[in-house]
Each structure stands twice: as C-alpha cells, then as structure tokens.
C-alpha cells in the first residue's frame, strides 16, 4: 500500500516566502520572541551563507545590512499549513496531519485514477509549487519510510516496495530526529543520538546493520524502533483527519499602505492563493470577506463592519422607493463612538463583504470587484494588515445549451454591474421586484442574476395572443411634478405646472379614482387619481394627475405613453 509524504523544509521561512515571494532573492531571517529579546528562529540559504544562524539575537542579525528580518507570523504559517493540507486532500481523501510541515496521504487505489506513482508524486510536487510551497515529496510503501525519505531527499523520491533500506541507507542518522519534540524529549533524543555518534553510527546504513539483540540490550525498545525506521520496516496505520473547509490568507505589512493601487497587488496575490486552494479542492466561492486592519490615526477604535455589496440573503439588498438604505454606521453613532474611544495607537478593522450571486473562481474578477468596492468605500486610514477569507461553495454545474437563448456570462456581468453601480449608484441597478402592496411605488431593487437555463422559455400558447396587445404604459415623473389646479365643480379644468409642456386647459378627464393604504402605519397614504388630456403643441398628451388627500397637494405623477 503506497503512501506519500509532503514535507516543507524550513517551514517558517517557507510561510514567509509564500506571503512575500520577492524575499526569495534576499537573505531572510525569521524572528521570534517578545521585543527587545527577539531571536532568530530560522534563516534561508542566502542568510546562512552570510553567517546568520538560528539562535542569534535580532541585534546581531541587524548588523548584516542585506538581511531581511520578519517576525514569525502564526497566521501565515497556519495559511501555509492549510494550503499543504489542501494539496494533499486534492489527491487523496485519507490524509494524516503529521506536523505543521509534514502531511501524509494514502495513495492506495489512486494509480488507476491518477497514473503511476512517479506521475502522482510529480503531480503533487507541481500542485504544491502552484500553492507557492517548495515541498519535498516522497512515496514509499510505509508511512514512516515516506516521511524519512521526504526529510532526507529534496525534490521527488519514489521508493519501490521492498527497497526501502537501500534507498534510505545513505541518509544521516539525524534525519530520524524529530525537530518538534518537547524540551525533555528532545534532551533524551539528543543523548541517544550522541551515543550512536560515539559508536560511529553516522548514517542509516550503519544503524540498520547493528545486531538487534545487542542494540536492544543497550538502547532498549527505543533503539529497536530507530533501527526499524532506518530499515524502512516500521509499520503503522494512518490517522486520517477531516480537513476543515477554511480558506483564509493574510499578510502583515512592514509599512502601512496608503494608496489602493499597491493594495491591489497584495490582494491579487492573496486572491490567487485562495483561488488555487479552492481549485485544488474542486470548490468555488460565493462570498469573500476582506478585513483590513487600519493604523489608527484619529483615535477611533471601532470595528467598521459594513454590508458591502448587497446579497439576496441579507435584508439590505433592495429598498423601497424613497427609503434610502440604512447606513452601516450613522453619523451620530459614529460621533458617539469616537468620543468614547480616544485611544491613540490602537488599530481598527475595516471589513468589506463581497457577496456573489453565483459561485465563481476567477481571481481577476474578484480583484476587480474588490477594487471597485474599495474605490466606492475607501478604508480611510493606512492599512497595516490584510486578511482575506472565502466562503467555499460548490462550483456551478450548469451547461449552456446550443439552442438556448444567449445569457450574459456571470463573471462578466458581475463586473459590469459593479461598474454601472459605480456610475449610477449602488441601489439603482438591478432587477425589479414588485411588493405585495397597492402602493403605486411598491417595488424594490434586487440583485440581477443571469443564470443560463434558469428558466425555460415559455411556449407560445393560444392565450399568448392576449400578450400581443400593447399596454398603455405610464411614464412616471420621479419625483412627481407639483401642480396648481383650478377646479370647477370639484373637477380639474386648468393645470399650471413647472414644466411648460405639462400645463394648460384640461381637454378631457376621467376620474377620480380613489386609493388609500397603509393607514395603520406612519406612512399612510390616500389620494385621488385623474386621467387628463392636455394640449402639447399640435398633439394631445395624457397625464395622470393625483390629489394627495392627506397633504392636500396636487401632483402630475406621469404621462401615458
């Protein structure tokens, strides 16, 4: 039964390089500890060539001008670890989370699906590289041999079954030492390897050749276990984990970002990483949540959470005419909260939520949508940390038919709608939804969704001849035109309005038709409607005149056209 191990050497450095790939060309050291007692935890090869070693103090590292120093980021490491698990999960459902830098996966039965073992190992290597992780891949017939080979050999290693001892033999004995032992266990392991070193055991070949009984007498069961590992003969079962569907990426900035343009570069990187991870799990996303930690310059300590682009699920997606959307934070609340939190130097969070009508997986589209959203709602303070999370969703599975009418491409349409919303206003573009009311403006705007084959076109039925008759439509004046009306016997006979084309003697009239509603609420309404004909140059135009019975005013509501 073959097993594969994915091992990321120098994990802290790899996590930092994943967030900032441009650092790969420079000597890099990762710091750990509380200021001013930070110590160097890990270094890359270039820093090592300069004489920088783990355990040195920050001050010692700063003596090297070329050295880039980064504080260890648990968030970046957890993102890198999640990416590692995603990589493994995309090849096998049985994955063991051995360590933060090591993942084991069971490849039993995968050969018929994904090809031979070397092909699978190469594919895993490429997938890890796509996730910006330089990993060592090893395939062996038992998990421990795969782990040891991955720790010992760089690149891709495939050990045929039964040849484990031969392949592992040149590796140094220290490869069996787990880097992440507890302090007391590490001390014990160090003593053990010191003993082996005194015996002249330098590599696994020598360890494997030792007589079992003599080794057992001197080192006990621990010695026997080490020998089994060196021979590649240890056997155990995997402890599979269910990888949580959490797709988050973060980057902490050394210097705050003030402009949106450099922010776009970072967002692009984060989005590409998230999309690659989602793609490796055959998922898409329907919601992106961007959290920006802001450097507080004004003394505000707030979590500015706003609704962002409206979704169908939340109640803020549409609005009735004349009812503006509820602001995320009213001016009064804002002022109160500002006065209550005069803490300088604290950081605030600025959260934007990007809800999509359909699951998508296109980093460019996401970036453009986020850019448009941030242009409309700028953060208002320098950004010191970016956190991006995606809510996974099943990808769209609808296939467009050859004989179906054309429909806008969802990704393109979403971008177009966002751009148009930037031109005309957020709540002035979308689909119209009628409300269950007799109110003349009883409608609201909701998100426009174009889904291929969402509805089959209606077949022409004999009743559809009814639809062939044109409806006399009303064109509404928004807002209605205020009018002065001269009445005779309670009926309008002359109209004076601000617009010159909507005034004069009434040639013909019909009405009044009385409407009222919502009397049980504060926004009660009651009115009389008249249909009028007025002379408009050579022609005659028809208008709807309305008498507001509560306010007493007259309005021209629209024209029949």
């Amino acid at each position, binding site marked *: 039964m073959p097993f594969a191990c994915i091992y990321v050497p120098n994990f802290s450095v790899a996590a930092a390089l994943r967030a900032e790939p441009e650092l790969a060309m420079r000597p890099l050291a990762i710091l750990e500890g509380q200021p001013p007692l930070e110590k160097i935890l890990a270094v890359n090869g270039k820093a090592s060539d300069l004489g920088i070693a783990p355990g040195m103090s920050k001050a010692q590292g700063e003596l090297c001008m070329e050295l880039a120093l980064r504080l260890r980021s648990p968030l970046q490491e957890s993102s890198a670890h999640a990416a590692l698990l995603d990589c493994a999960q995309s090849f096998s459902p049985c994955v063991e989370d051995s360590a933060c830098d090591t993942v084991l996966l069971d490849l039993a039965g995968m050969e018929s699906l994904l090809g031979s073992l070397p092909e699978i190992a190469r594919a895993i290597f490429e997938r890890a590289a796509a996730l910006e992780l330089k990993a060592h891949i090893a395939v062996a017939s038992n998990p421990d041999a795969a782990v040891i080979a991955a720790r010992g050999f760089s690149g891709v290693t495939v050990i045929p079954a039964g040849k484990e001892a031969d392949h592992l033999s040149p590796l140094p004995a220290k490869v069996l030492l787990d880097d992440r032992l507890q302090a007391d266990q590490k001390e014990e392991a160090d003593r053990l390897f010191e003993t082996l070193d005194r015996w002249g055991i330098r590599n696994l070949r020598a360890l494997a050749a030792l007589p079992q009984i003599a080794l057992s007498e001197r080192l006990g069961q621990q010695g026997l276990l080490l020998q089994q590992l060196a021979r590649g003969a240890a056997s155990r079962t995997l402890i599979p984990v269910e990888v949580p569907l959490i797709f988050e990426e973060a980057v902490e900035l050394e210097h705050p970002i003030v402009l949106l343009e450099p922010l776009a570069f970072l967002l692009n990187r984060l989005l590409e990483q998230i999309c690659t991870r989602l793609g490796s799990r055959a998922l898409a996303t329907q919601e992106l949540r961007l959290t920006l930690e802001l450097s507080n310059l004004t003394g505000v300590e707030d979590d500015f959470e706003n609704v962002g682009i409206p979704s169908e699920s939340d109640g803020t997606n549409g609005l009735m005419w004349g009812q503006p959307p509820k602001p995320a934070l009213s001016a009064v609340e804002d002022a109160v909260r500002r006065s209550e939190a005069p803490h300088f130097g604290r950081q605030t969070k600025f959260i934007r939520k990007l809800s999509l009508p359909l699951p998508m997986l296109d980093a460019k589209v996401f970036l453009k949508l986020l850019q448009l959203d941030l242009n409309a709602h700028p953060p208002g303070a320098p950004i010191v940390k970016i956190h991006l999370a995606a809510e996974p969703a099943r990808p769209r599975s609808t296939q467009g038919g050859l004989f179906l009418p054309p429909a806008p491409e969802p990704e393109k349409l979403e*971008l177009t709608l966002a751009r148009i919303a930037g031109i005309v206003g957020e709540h002035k573009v979308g*689909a119209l939804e009628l409300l269950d009311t007799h109110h003349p403006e009883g409608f609201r705007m909701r998100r426009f969704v174009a889904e291929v084959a969402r509805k089959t076109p209606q077949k022409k039925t004999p009743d559809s001849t009814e639809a*062939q008759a044109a*409806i006399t439509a009303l064109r509404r004046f928004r807002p209605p035109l205020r009018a002065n009306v001269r009445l005779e016997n309670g009926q309008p006979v002359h109209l004076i309005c601000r617009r010159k084309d909507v005034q004069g003697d009434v040639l*013909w*009239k019909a009405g009044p038709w009385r409407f009222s509603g919502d009397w049980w609420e504060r926004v009660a309404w009651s009115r009389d409607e008249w249909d009028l004909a007025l002379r408009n140059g050579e022609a005659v135009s028809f208008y709807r005149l309305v008498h507001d019975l509560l306010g007493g005013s007259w309005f021209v509501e629209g024209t029949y056209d």
Partner: protein
Amino acid sequence: MSTVVVSTSAALGRPCLFNDESPSRVGTTIGCPVERSSTGHLLSTINGRKIPSASITRASRLEIRPAPEMVTSGIDALDALTGGLPRGCLSELCGPASSGRTSIMLAALAAATRRGEYCALIDANDTLDPQSIAAAGVDLDHLLWVRCGEHTSQNSQPKQNGCPTSRTPSVREVGIFPTTAFEFDRTKPRAFEHRLEQVLRATDLLLESGGFGLIVLDLADLPPQAARRIPLTTWFRFRRAIENKPTILLAIEQQPIAGSCSSLLLQLGTAKNDIGHGNEPGDEPAAKQRKNAAHGVSRGSNAEEDQAPKGRKKICAGDALDSPPSHAHLLTGLAINAELTRSRLERKPARSVIFETKTAWAG
C-alpha cells in the same frame, strides 16, 4: 504577391492594396507619393512621414452583408409593417409624449423575455412604472433596470418650495408622495449632461458585456437638444459593438438622433383626433366619438362597475357635483400611428400603420 495602390480617400488616406492585381497597375494615391520599401511593401508618404499601407478587400469582392434576423416586436401590426426588430442593429422609436413609445418598448421587452432572453433597460430619466411593466407581461427576472439620474443623498435636508423644512412632518403630512422631496430641475443643462454621460457609459459597458437579447436606451424624456449632444461617433460605436451579435439595440427618443446608424426608424404619433377641435371639454357626444382616448360612457351603475379598474374604489357620482361625474369616462387606451421612416432591409416609400393600446385596467 503583388499589391496595387488604388486612388481612394478611404482608410484615412492610406493607400488601399489589392492582393491579386498586376504590378503594372501600381499608382499613387491622390496627393500621396507611393514608394516601395526595402522589404517590398508599399509605403505612402504624407508630409514626409512614411505610412505603411493597409491591405483591404476590394469593394466588389466584399461579402454581401447578410440580412439580419428579425424578431417580433410584440405587436402584430408593427411586425406586419417592419418585419420585426432586426438583431445586431440599432432601431429608433421617435415621437412626442403619449405617442406610444413606451407601449412599444414594453411590448418588445415582453416578447424578448418570453423568448427567454435577458434584456436591459437604461432609463435616462428613471421613468419606468413597475405596474405598467408587470401588466405588459415582462418577466422581471430577465430585465436589468439601470436607473440613471441624480444620486440621492441620505443626509440631504428635504425641501419644500425650495426651502428646507425644519419641523418634523406629522402623520397626515406623510402622504403617498415625498411632499418635501427635492424636485429635480429638469431645465438644467448640466443635469442632462450628467444623465447622458451615465446612459452612454452604462450602454458601453452592457454592450461590451454581451449576452443580452435586447438593450433599450430610454431617452424619451430628454429634450431633443440634449439628446442631440450624443456624438454620431458614439452611435457608430454602438452599432459596431452589436454587429454580428444577436443583440437588438432600441433607442426611444423624441426625435431621430442616430442618423444613418439606425437600421430601422419608426416615427410614432397619436392617430388623428378631434380633441380640442371645437368641442368643449366634457362634451359628452364628442367624447363618444374620440379615437385616441377610447373611453366608456356611463350606462348606469352596472356599466360603471364593469369598466372600473380592478381593486379601485369608485366615488359616488352626483355627490355635490353639478356636472356629469368624470369617472363616467375611462381612459381605455390610445390609438397609435406608426410610420416606417427608414428601414435598411427594404427601400420603399414611407408607410404607416395604426394600432391601439389598452390600459391595464381596461380589461
């Protein structure tokens, strides 16, 4: 491969080269000396600058542009006149207020959504009536409505007669209308410019996006002088954007503004009527004969109820009214005269057709 320069003013003054002509016919463009470059390509020199020539197909060998697919406009009479609306072309509907432009627009939208197509309405003046569009049978899920106009500010003080109101309106004052709402000054030229800019940018984006069966530009409430500010190049761009695509671009306006860019031009107007020609308002016999304001006359309480709008409460006739009650009349529809002014498909004298629309409550 030999090329020939033909004297023409086309292609921005560049010499036009045919691929299959003999070298002996090499000539010069008018006013543009032509020379052969070291690589064998012909170059023309204008004001001392060498311009590489563009190779195009001779006009006589151009493919015949296929006739566009015609789809129904939703009104049989109009389809009989025009053959329908052409896909991949710009069509214009022109006419004054109450000439039936919106009725035809809604009928076209309803027909397109019945076919399962997605439509977009770019409403320059935000005049769409939700009840009308629902009554016309438009599938609202398939219609994208872009409402151009002023951005409404949440914090703007409401105004009454141009003055901000300081007191809180009472319950009785909160009526059907925002009585304290800011009235948009339609006479301001800058406001029209702003709307036009919004309309054109939104149209550009939607045409670029693609996938819509019908895109309507509703410029009907823009004054002609404002609508004419749209450069002709914009219409050419729009026409080019939808060429060879299944999209219909329909412009609603008061006067034709797209010039030769439109493939179909319909001039609309009310059918000849007698309103105001020697008849007093409220003249009952004259009202019976009106064509454009088809209405019913009171024939007793039963007739009134038959013709009353559904769900509408009728007031009692004769309550302190000396003259006949005006709700004895009912606006049941309009008679529309549609004249085919231009059609790319056929060169025939202008023809017209008269059809009637009916109000939603006319049964």
